């Protein structure tokens, strides 16, 4: 027994050593960085692209004599097999090609796991996140402003409204977008046409939405025992929050005040449109309620059940991001492959179009981003910075455009490619260029406050949910939104003295803003922290822009 025990112990120790020695970063002869990202087959392709980019930009492996190290046939075959490409295919390598002087390994983890790893000093060199501000507050990110401006991945290379998502409370840039996400209305034109509903106007209001929705729902469900077709997905969801934000912003309101120091949702505008959502859900039945949703497809994946219902024609439209093009194309390809197998012409196409979400005067478009943050615990900072440069490169952006993986981070490099897409993919309408243009001109990030932790409950959605479930009256729901977010702000302040200090400073500015507003004076632009108000006041001529050298 003793010998058996000792044997097992030795075996485990040996296995541990073997695992450690064969880990990619130890086994590799070049620096390796880890990219903590989401589960998406396209990441491997992007890694191959990065390796090509390194070689193209002179970051190659050299031997002792300073000569480039070349792939042998075995190495090339092994690498191609590893990435699942055949020789001669795009991104494949062949014997004699130069070897890059660095490599990236993609690792997937949930948001919670990434958070735990990040605060424990164990996260990847590059961390993909939509919560740059939260990570900055934890001190796990590295400020990049100087290097970014020097090496072409500064804020001026991406969307103007994106700054709020990449910059920390200290005003430094901490990340660069991998791909932008957006909240656009995607319309299944085939579904609309099937039920004889006219095209959705380019510029539409919630009243238009209701009118067309009623017509669609009536026609689509005619003769059915129970309602199976809806105008769009459930509004008791993230999409509902996004749509509500669009509408209230178009009326000049937002969840937080100008300095993001208080929630200000307890007003008639929020009440009016939450009530309208209830009407659309339970009275007009334009959108499914919780029971309808539970009764429909539960297929998950990119876009989840909403996407499946949209493709199958159960929803005439969905509010989703541009990344859904990946799924659209997958579905089309699968169906066309099936048609070919049946000996038919592979001509299946889903015809769709995009519109801004229905809204009023002040046109706005919500976007976010999966941003690459440079992790403070990185052991390969130089390679990690090169990776950031790669994200801003033409090669990467072209790839994002071609594959439909969100909005390109550096759009100015790929405008020609965006314009060319309608010729090659006519069924996609003008969605690619359209979204980029919206993001460039009217794009604003969704609701956020640095004083509300990203992991806190979504009180806006939760209160809508409580109202929809008859747990709260409309007045209570709207009051709850404001109270609960303000409680979160209070908790954050009390939990962190630095936060308290920052809040007091911003709150003092807020008092001044309120005085200026009352007096009808123009507000200094640098006082405004809320990207929505910055844009809104600027458009309304309510801001006083600071000139260079002016004392703030």
């Amino acid at each position: 027994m003793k010998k058996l025990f000792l044997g097992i112990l030795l075996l485990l120790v040996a296995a541990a050593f073997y695992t450690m020695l064969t880990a990619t970063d130890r086994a590799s002869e070049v620096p390796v960085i880890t990219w903590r990202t989401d589960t998406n087959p396209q990441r491997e392709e992007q890694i191959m692209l990065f390796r090509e980019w390194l070689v193209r930009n002179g970051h190659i492996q050299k031997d002792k004599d300073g000569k480039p190290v070349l792939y042998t046939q075995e190495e090339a075959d092994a690498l191609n097999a590893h990435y699942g490409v055949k020789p001669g295919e795009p991104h494949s390598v062949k014997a004699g090609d130069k070897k890059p002087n660095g490599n990236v390994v993609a690792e997937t983890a949930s948001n919670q796991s990434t958070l735990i790893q990040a605060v424990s000093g164990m996260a990847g060199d590059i961390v993909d996140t939509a919560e740059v501000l939260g990570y900055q507050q934890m001190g796990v990110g590295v400020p990049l402003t100087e290097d970014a401006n020097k090496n072409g991945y500064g804020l001026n290379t991406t969307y103007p409204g994106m700054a709020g998502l990449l910059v920390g409370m200290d005003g430094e840039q901490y990340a660069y977008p991998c791909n932008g996400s957006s909240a656009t209305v995607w319309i299944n034109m085939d579904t609309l046409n099937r039920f004889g509903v006219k095209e959705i106007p380019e510029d539409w209001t919630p009243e238009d939405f209701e009118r067309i929705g009623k017509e669609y729902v009536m026609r689509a469900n005619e003769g059915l025992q129970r309602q199976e077709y809806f105008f769009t997905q459930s509004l008791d969801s993230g999409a509902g929050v996004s749509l509500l934000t669009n509408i209230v912003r178009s009326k000049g309101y937002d969840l937080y005040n100008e300095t993001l120091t208080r929630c200000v949702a307890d007003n008639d505008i929020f009440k009016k449109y939450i009530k309208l959502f209830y009407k659309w859900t339970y009275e007009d039945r334009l959108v499914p309620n919780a029971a309808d949703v539970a009764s429909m497809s539960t297929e998950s994946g990119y876009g989840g059940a909403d996407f499946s219902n949209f493709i199958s024609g159960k929803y005439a439209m969905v509010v989703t991001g541009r990344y859904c093009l990946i799924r659209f194309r997958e579905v089309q390809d699968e169906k066309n492959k099936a048609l070919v197998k049946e000996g038919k012409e592979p001509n299946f196409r889903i015809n769709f179009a995009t519109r801004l979400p229905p809204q009023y005067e002040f046109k706005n478009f919500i976007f976010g981003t999966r941003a690459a943050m440079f992790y403070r615990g990185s052991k390969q900072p130089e390679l990690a910075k090169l990776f950031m440069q790669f994200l801003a490169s033409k090669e990467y952006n072209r790839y994002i455009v071609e594959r439909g993986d969100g909005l390109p981070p550096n759009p100015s490099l790929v405008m020609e490619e965006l314009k060319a897409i309608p010729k090659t993919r006519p069924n996609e309408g003008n969605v690619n260029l359209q979204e980029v243009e919206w993001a460039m001109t009217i794009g604003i990030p969704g609701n956020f406050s640095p004083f509300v932790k990203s992991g806190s409950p979504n009180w806006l959605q939760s209160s809508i949910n409580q109202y929809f479930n008859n747990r709260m009256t409309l007045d209570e729901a709207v009051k709850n939104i404001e109270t609960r977010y303000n409680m979160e702000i209070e908790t954050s302040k009390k939990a962190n003295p630095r936060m308290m200090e920052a809040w007091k400073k911003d709150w003092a500015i807020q008092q001044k803003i309120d005085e200026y507003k009352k007096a009808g004076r123009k507000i200094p632009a640098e006082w405004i922290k809320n990207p929505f108000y910055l844009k809104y006041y600027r458009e309304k001529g309510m801001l006083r822009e600071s000139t260079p050298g002016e004392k703030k």
Partner: protein
Amino acid sequence: MAFNKKDAKDCAVGIGFLLPNILGFMAFTVIPLVMSIYMAFTDWNLEMHNYFRFEPIRFVGFDNFIKLFTDPDFGQYFGNTFFLMIGIPFGVAGSLVAALLLNWDFNGSGKRRIWTTMLITAVMIASAGILVCLGMGATAMTLLMVSLIGGVLVIGSLGGKTVYRTLFYFPYFTAGVATYILWKKLYNPLTGPINNALRPILEALNPVAILIAPACTAIGIILLVFVGLFFLSMVRRKLRLWRDGECGTLSAWLGIALLSLPLIFSWSWCSPSWKSMVEYNAACAVETARPEVLVNVSTTNPNPVWLLVMAIAFLATGWGFAAYRLSRGRKYNCIPDRAIGDSAIVDGSTMVGLMAMVGIACVFWVLPQMVLQTNGQPTPDGLTPPQWLADYYWAKPSLLLMGFWGAIGSNNMLLYLAGLSGVPQELYEAADIDGASPWQRFWNITWPQLSNVTFFIMIMAVIGGLQGGFDMARVMTQGGPAGSTTTLAYYIYTQGFGTGRLGYASAVSWLLFLLVFVVTMFNWKFGNRYTNE
């Protein structure tokens, strides 16, 4: 005694064997446990305290615990945790019934088995026929389920109790997430097999519901009165046991306190249903030209306060009677905590049963609104099946039902089976000689002999209940709708890993530990005594 070289060597070898386990236990249990005690009294926040940021950790005393009790959501989540524990007595009873059935040798002789098989098959075919006639065979899923149940019956009748024992234990060794996804499908409001089966039944019951709608108020009140009377009779039983020296004073008070809970909760549970019934009746009176169409208490202007008065009256009677009897003393004395197990198990289970009765009273009060419009005409949809996980009020009972299913065939059943095998057969033989009926055999032999197992199961189930609910909430409901299925375990997770406030999350964990500790102490102190009593 001398400690020689060989002993030292043996000791070293022993420690060597134990060391991996001890190290693992230290690294993953003891050290995090001590850390979490420390955290609970500090402002530990991932924003300020992590690998890269070492800001001073402030000792905040009981601030985290105070915040916990002032948190507007904590009460709801605490209540959710306890609500889900209502299923425990039912689950325990179910596992006992399952164990009794599985302990029954129904194989018999070959001829008997063939007859059993034929009989079961005939019943199954007839049942399937009835279901199809009622319209329940409309979906392939329903037919599949009927076939599955039939198949199980046939295989069981051929294979005997071994087959059933394996099948009953199935839920326990099936992966949790897989069963949750399966139940999610079963609970599908429009296309799920449960609602597909319920729909024709409810359609058939709709005329009956319309018929009894005018009497619903009265039925609800009768049920509540029944709850009150049952409370009084159980108090009387408790006091009789106390008088005869079979129950200690402490145990008597504990039992009465537990029995009082349904009446205390009846106000908060019944009041909204009663109020909506009153409003509904008022609307009916306005809407219809003949308010007398709905013969109910609305004509006497009922007020929800009546419920409170009624509950207080019953409670006052019970407690007053108890105080009077206990103050008069008794003939046979005993220790204060004698029969505390009886109070915990019997009175606790009665409490749950009475709470269910209060819930049924509420259902009767909202029934008229489900089947009749305010103008007295039937509603277009009639009685509709629940929306289960999608409905605020049904989400918790849905999880409860699923938990009940899992509990029947769990380790509890195995423990009961083991317990049953330990019951001396001569006791049954003696009972047979005395001409005891099956029920008398169970109540006077089986149940007392299994008391130790029951007590252990109940305690473990309560501990499990306090710690549970996380995986169900995570997979099936994400804690919703509107927080209705968020339990303390899920709340700890969201606080710790959602907002990074580890100090606060630790405080919630320690409160949970305190509850579990109290229950464990209860078991430790009274477990053996209950068995011996």
